[in-house]
C-alpha cells in the first residue's frame, strides 16, 4: 500500500505536475482569448470583479466583428492565398525534389545546397527590396503580390521535405514500370506520385499553416481593406488610434485561428511527421 502511494507521488512529481504547468502556460492564452471574446464591455473593463469567468456571456463582439468590419473578406483572402501558395509550392517543390532524390546530374549538389540556404534566409533580409520590386511591377494591393512571394518561403521547405520522403519510396517499383515499357513521365504520374501522398499531405499542411501565419509581406504589400489578410486586417483596422476593441480583437484572433486549428487537428500526425522530418531524418 505504502509502496504504491510512493509510486503515485513519484509519478505526480515526475509527470503530472510538470506536465500540468506546461499545459497551463501553453493553453492559458487561448482560454483568455475565448473568455474575453464573450464578455460584455461592462465586465471587460471592470477591475472590481473576478476576471477568470464570464458572468453574462454575449456574442455581441462576434456580431460586430462580422457585420461592422471586413473580417469575412479577410478570411476569404487569407484562405485563397494560402490555397494558391500551397498548390504552387507543392508543384515546384516536387519538380525540385524528384530529380534531386532520384537522379544523379551535374550541379545537383549545388542545387540542394542552394535550396537549403534559401530555406534558411529569413524574410526581413528581403522585404525592403521586394517591396520596391512589387511596386515597380504595379502589384501593390493585389493578392497576386502575396501569392507570388509566399511560395518563395514555402518551395524550399516543401522541396526539402519531399526529397526526404521520395528517398524512402523504393526505387524498384519505378524500375519495374520502366521495364514494362512505361515512359519516365508515366512512371512518375502513375506509379511514383500516388505512393507519395502522405509526403504531400505533410508538406501541404505545413505550407498552409505557414501561409496563414505570414505577416510581414502582407503588411507591406496589402494596404487596402478589401485585399487584406486576417492578421493584417486585425492589427490595422481593429486598433483605431489608441483605442483597442479588445472584445472584437479576441473574437478575431479566435475565429482567425479556427481554420488552421481544424485542418491541423485532422492531420496532426502528418504535421508532426513533417515538423520532425527536418531535424530527425538525418
Amino acid at each position, binding site marked *: 500500500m505504502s509502496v504504491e502511494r510512493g509510486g503515485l507521488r513519484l509519478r505526480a512529481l515526475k509527470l503530472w505536475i510538470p506536465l500540468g504547468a506546461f499545459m497551463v502556460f*501553453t493553453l492559458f492564452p487561448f482560454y483568455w482569448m475565448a473568455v474575453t471574446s464573450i464578455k460584455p464591455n461592462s465586465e*471587460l473593463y471592470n477591475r472590481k470583479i473576478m*476576471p477568470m469567468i464570464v458572468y453574462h456571456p454575449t456574442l455581441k463582439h462576434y456580431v460586430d466583428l462580422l457585420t461592422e468590419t471586413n473580417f469575412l473578406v479577410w478570411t476569404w483572402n487569407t484562405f485563397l492565398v494560402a490555397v494558391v501558395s500551397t498548390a504552387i509550392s507543392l508543384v515546384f517543390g516536387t519538380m525540385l525534389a524528384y530529380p534531386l532524390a532520384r537522379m544523379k546530374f551535374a550541379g545537383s549538389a549545388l542545387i*540542394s*545546397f542552394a535550396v537549403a540556404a534559401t530555406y534558411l*534566409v529569413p524574410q526581413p533580409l*528581403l522585404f525592403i*527590396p521586394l517591396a520596391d520590386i512589387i511596386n515597380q511591377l504595379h502589384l501593390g494591393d493585389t493578392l497576386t503580390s502575396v501569392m507570388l512571394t509566399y511560395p518563395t518561403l514555402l518551395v524550399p521547405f516543401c522541396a526539402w521535405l519531399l526529397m526526404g520522403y521520395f528517398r524512402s519510396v523504393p526505387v524498384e517499383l519505378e524500375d519495374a514500370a520502366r521495364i514494362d515499357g512505361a515512359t519516365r513521365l508515366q512512371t512518375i504520374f502513375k506509379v511514383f506520385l500516388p505512393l507519395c501522398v502522405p509526403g504531400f499531405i505533410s508538406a501541404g499542411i505545413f505550407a498552409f*499553416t505557414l501561409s496563414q501565419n505570414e505577416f510581414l509581406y502582407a503588411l507591406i504589400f496589402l494596404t487596402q481593406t478589401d485585399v487584406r489578410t486576417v492578421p493584417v486586417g*486585425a492589427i490595422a483596422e481593429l486598433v483605431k488610434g489608441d483605442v483597442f476593441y479588445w472584445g472584437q480583437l479576441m473574437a478575431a484572433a479566435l475565429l482567425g485561428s479556427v481554420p488552421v486549428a481544424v485542418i491541423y487537428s485532422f492531420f496532426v500526425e502528418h504535421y508532426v511527421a513533417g515538423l520532425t522530418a527536418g531535424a530527425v531524418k538525418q
Partner: protein
Amino acid sequence: MFSWLMVGPPILFLCALVGYPFLYGILLSLEDRPVAHAGTFVGLANFVADAHDPVFWRVTINTFVYTFFATILKMIGGLGLALVMNQDFRAKNLIRALMLLPFIVPTVLSTIAWMWMLDPGFSVINWLLRYFGLANPGPSWLGSPILAMISLIIVNVWRGLPFYGITLLAGLPTSSPDLSEAATIDGAGTWHRFIYVTLPLLKPVIFIVTMFSIIFTFADFQLVYVLTRGGPANATHLFATYAFDIAMGGGQLGMGASVALAMLPPLALIIIAMSIYMKPNKS
C-alpha cells in the same frame, strides 16, 4: 537533360524572387534612395551612418540579448517538455496536439492575446499578482524597457517551446530505451543517464533545432511589431523592426536596407554551416 527541364522552372522562380531581391537589396544599401525617387550611389555611406547611430547599436544589443535568452530558455524548456512527455500516460497524442497549438496558430493573432494579457490597465497577470498579494497594482509589462524585453522573450518562448519539445521528443524514443536500460543495469543514476546517454543521442537534433531557432529569433519581426513597436524608447527594437521603421515609416529604402543587411554576417555563418550540415545525402 530531363532533370534540368524539371528543376529549371522552380530554380528560375527562386532566382527571380529570392536571388534577385537579395542582390537588389545589396544595391539599395549602397544608395541614397527615398521611396518613389531614383536612387543615387553613395558607396558605404549608409553603413557609416549606421555605425554612428546610437539607436543602431542599441538595436544590435537588443537583438543579441533577445536571441540569446529566448533560445536558451526554449532549449531548456523544450528539453524539459520532451523528457516529461517521453513517459507513458493517457491521452498522450491529444496532449501533444494541444501543446503544439502556440506554434500552429497565426503568431500575430496569439500575440494580440498576449498584448491583452499584458495590458497596463487590465492585465490578467497583474490581477493574479494582486489576488495572491504579490504586487499592487502590478508592473506595467510593456511600459518599462527591461520588462518589455522580458515580456517579448516570454512570448517568444511560449510560441517556440512546443517546436523544440515535440522535435526533441521525436528524437527520444527511437534512441533511448535500450541504451538507458543498459545504463541502469550498469548502475548509472538518472542524472548520469541523462548526461551520458540521452543528451549525446539528442545532440544532432538539438543542434539543428537550435540553429533554426537562432535564425528565426534573430530575424524576428511579428512579436515586436505587435507588442511594442520597438518601444519604449527603442528598448525592444530589433534589426527587422528598425529596418522596417526606417524603410516603410521613414521612406528611406537605402538606409533601411543597410540595417537589414547588418543581420547578414552572423546569419550567413549559421546558414552556410547548416546548409552543409543538412546536405541530404547521408542516409
